[in-house]
């Protein structure tokens, strides 16, 4: 059974970290794009959406070149923090984070744009700091939209294959995630393992998707009220 549980746990770990990273970076980017006006704002939005439309292998190749030991960024990470992204689970986290990023920042931007700025002004007049206004008014009102995006990002990160394979490879127990394990099992003719892995993956993905739909429906209803 180890050949099922090990990749499942690894996938959950990688997808979990990717979601946490996107919770911070995606929400911050969405807020920034929703609240600032500058030339090239929509161009930046398009550029940040690229990971969604680019083939994952191409994206993985870019990441490999960008963070490899011979690159400036890669050698800096290695020399300063001792972090090596190539062929490690941290590399898988990087790949999943980048691929899932647009799924978080886009709905976050839309959710922040829907918050009535007058409510934030009311908070300021009532003596609250900008930080308090964000956490007590803006974020709670945008939260449902953000959460739906995070769930989609989690599902997408869980299913990540191409970019992860490029940067982290397929080392059993270390970087062999669920979707890569499915591929390896089929290649090796281990039908039983492949069936199990596919069933588990499907179950997780369906429940995440259902939660996301349920959340975004609730979002619509609260807006009508």
């Amino acid at each position, binding site marked *: 059974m180890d050949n099922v549980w090990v990749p499942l746990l690894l996938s959950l770990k990688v997808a979990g970290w990717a979601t946490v990273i996107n919770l911070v970076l995606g929400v911050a980017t969405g807020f920034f794009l929703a609240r600032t006006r500058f030339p090239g704002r929509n161009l930046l939005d398009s550029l940040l959406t690229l990971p969604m439309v680019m083939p994952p292998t191409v994206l993985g190749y870019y990441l490999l070149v960008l963070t490899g030991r011979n690159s400036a960024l890669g050698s800096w990470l290695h020399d300063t923090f001792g972090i090596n992204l190539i062929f490690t689970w941290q590399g898988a986290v990087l790949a999943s984070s980048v691929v899932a990023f647009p799924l978080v920042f886009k709905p976050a931007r839309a959710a922040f744009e829907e918050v009535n700025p007058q*409510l934030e002004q*009311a908070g300021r007049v009532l003596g609250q700091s900008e930080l*308090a206004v964000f956490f007590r008014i803006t974020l709670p*009102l945008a939260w449902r939209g953000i959460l739906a995006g995070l769930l989609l990002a989690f599902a997408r990160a869980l299913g990540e294959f191409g970019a992860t394979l490029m940067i982290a490879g397929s080392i059993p127990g270390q970087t062999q995630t669920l979707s890569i394990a499915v591929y390896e099992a089929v290649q090796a003719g281990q039908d039983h393992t492949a069936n199990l892995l596919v069933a588990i993956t499907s179950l997780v993905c369906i429940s995440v998707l259902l939660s996301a739909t349920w959340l975004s429906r609730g979002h619509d209803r609260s807006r009508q009220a």
Partner: protein
Amino acid sequence: MIELRLDKTLISPTRRFHLQLAFSSDAQRLLIYGPSGSGKSLLLQSLAGLQTPDAGLIKIAGRTLFDSERAINVPARQRQLGFLFQDYALFPHLNARQNIAFSLRRGVLNPRRGIRDQRIDDWLQRFSLTDVQHLYPHQLSGGQRQRTALARALITEPQALLLDEPFSALDPALRQHMRRQLADLQSQLGIPMIIISHDPQDLAFFDAAVLQVEAGRLKGAALAE
């Protein structure tokens, strides 16, 4: 009570608007009267610190809130003014009690549903909101919403109360009743009030100093004390 010199140019793709006026008044009730688009909302927002004038001076109740020559610009949260927004700007994710209690809590967390404080109970009782205190804004009637917003502003014990078209969101039958209630409240609390309106009936009802604004300028110098 109020001393004001104000200069502000707003430029949008569709129009260029110039607000320029100066006046001072010791009246306890000041009615700023003018058609929509005359700049009176901009004026009120400048008083509250929600808009920054290009140049000028704002003094309310003996405190200098803005002085371009001395580079003073007190942020909205420190102006100690009550602001009643035109459509009340109640926080939709908080119930009536939490809305009223909003300013009593500092930091990044909202007041809990059952927050205890004698001041909240006093205001709920004064405005006959005790029975509906656990309802959310969309469940309240127009009059209840306005009273909740008033209580939320007054619980901060502001130096002055600014009201942006306070009766326009109410149906006509209720308006006269609320005018009477507001006038009584003002006499009881002795708090200076600055009301913005384009409704001739407000002009007829309130025994107030009147300031007529048109196209960003004072119309006549007439200030009936």
